């Protein structure tokens, strides 16, 4: 009992420490925004590494997200006896509001967040961050600013593509597998499409990108020891990012999509 309480207490303190550390890093990131012109080359480099290189993975995932959502929706419709002309509507809403932003962000956390934590963590344990400091170079400006900004801008852009590709995936499955005509599917999608849903999805994506970037950088900076420390930072970064994405997604659902 006593042991359990002490473990719980330690975890609680660690959690509060992490939240505090993230807030401080976010504040330092905001302070470094004035240095955007100076870090322009580094930002462009990260936009490519973080955004463009994530596109193939997002494309593959989106195709299957759209496909499976069409199939499952058709299965549920059959179960409750709903007409299949609403299939485009169901797939469109699910993809634009939830599936594309959340699943893309989770995959992004696994690919990019882990990569950022591993890269910065390795730099920390091999004294490269100390070397930056010793040369009078601010590591937040040099490392955090380009990565977090790239995440902030590239996740919404990736979700924009993911929306489009998932709808195509859903359309193909509806036509080939469920025998719904493309016209019926697209009419259903068009009738229910709201620009505000689309914008809200992209807004969520931007916040998820910010979270993944910040958490990856924070865990990387915190890494200590050697390979084990870097591995731990990488895993922790993915876990914290995923939890925060799901928690924030719920908060967004309440704020943006009022019942």
């Amino acid at each position, binding site marked *: 009992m006593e042991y359990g309480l002490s473990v719980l207490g330690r975890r609680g303190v660690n959690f509060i420490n992490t939240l505090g550390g993230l807030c401080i890093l976010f504040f330092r990131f905001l302070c470094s925004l004035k240095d955007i012109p100076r870090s322009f080359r580094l930002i462009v480099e990260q936009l490519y590494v973080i955004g463009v290189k994530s596109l193939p993975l997002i494309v593959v995932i989106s195709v299957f997200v759209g496909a499976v959502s069409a199939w499952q929706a058709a299965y549920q419709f059959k179960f409750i006896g709903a007409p299949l002309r609403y299939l485009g509507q169901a797939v469109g809403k699910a993809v634009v509001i939830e599936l594309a932003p959340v699943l893309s962000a989770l995959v992004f956390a696994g690919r990019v967040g882990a990569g950022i934590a591993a890269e910065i963590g390795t730099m920390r344990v*091999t004294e490269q961050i100390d*070397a930056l400091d*010793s*040369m*009078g170079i601010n590591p937040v400006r040099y490392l955090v600013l380009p990565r977090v900004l790239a995440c902030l801008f590239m996740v919404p852009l990736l979700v924009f593509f993911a929306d489009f590709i998932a709808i195509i995936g859903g359309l193909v499955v509806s036509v080939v597998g469920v025998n719904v005509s493309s016209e019926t599917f697209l009419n259903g999608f068009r009738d229910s499409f709201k620009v505000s849903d689309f914008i809200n999805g992209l807004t969520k994506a931007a916040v998820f990108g910010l979270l993944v970037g910040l958490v990856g950088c924070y865990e990387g900076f915190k890494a200590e020891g050697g390979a084990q420390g870097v591995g731990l930072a990488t895993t922790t970064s993915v876990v914290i990012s995923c939890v925060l994405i799901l928690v924030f997604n719920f908060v967004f659902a309440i704020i943006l999509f009022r019942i």
Partner: protein
Amino acid sequence: MAYIRIDNLVKMFGEQTVLDGVNINIEKGESIVVIGQSGCGKSVLLKHLLRLLEPTKGRVWFEGYDIATLNHRELIGIRQRIGMVFQSAALFDSLTVAENVGLGLRESRQYSTRQVEEIVMTKLELVAMVSAAEKFPAELSGGMRKRVALARAIATDPEVLLYDEPTTGLDPITADMINDLIVELKEKLNVTSIAVTHDMTSAFKIADRITMLYQGKVEYDGSPEETRSTDNAVVRQFIEGQARGPIQVR
């Protein structure tokens, strides 16, 4: 006041006291080597000079300025006057040798691209690494990495050079080459050097003065000649590399 003054420096990590009231004065142009067992706090001491670590107690003065009280801008100014060669060389993996050496110059925004290129080549020439300018750190041997780290540390013509275990992990010939380079740089650039090492061959070659840390305090301070003939049992055991004596192997 001394050029660099370390005044009653205490550093604790949690419950563990690593430095327990260290006092060292360093004069301009002097080459001091801090020796001591692995884990005795030599690197920790060095990192306090750049405020990479904050003291638990005590002060570090540089030209009369208390390093702990400097604001961000002043601290960057001081850091640009001090070059450091890290134990692991700490080269940036994603940058070539030339980009590594020129990074501090580029980021200071005081030099044109052409000037940066010229300075980088001059510094690489000093350490005989011009031919590796376009290579990445992963393509270099340990000795070559140290030489590049040395070139990077002197790129901004610092007044003070800090060396953290400059010869650790190198074969004796490469280690001697690094020692020669350190002596040569001191003579050519007239810098103040502070090196920490447990390599006595290196210490005797590059030091004007040798200081030994033991149990978190300065145990001994003297010239290389005095150190060779000292009857301090702790220093004798260390420089002779004896397992038996007052120093307990941890």
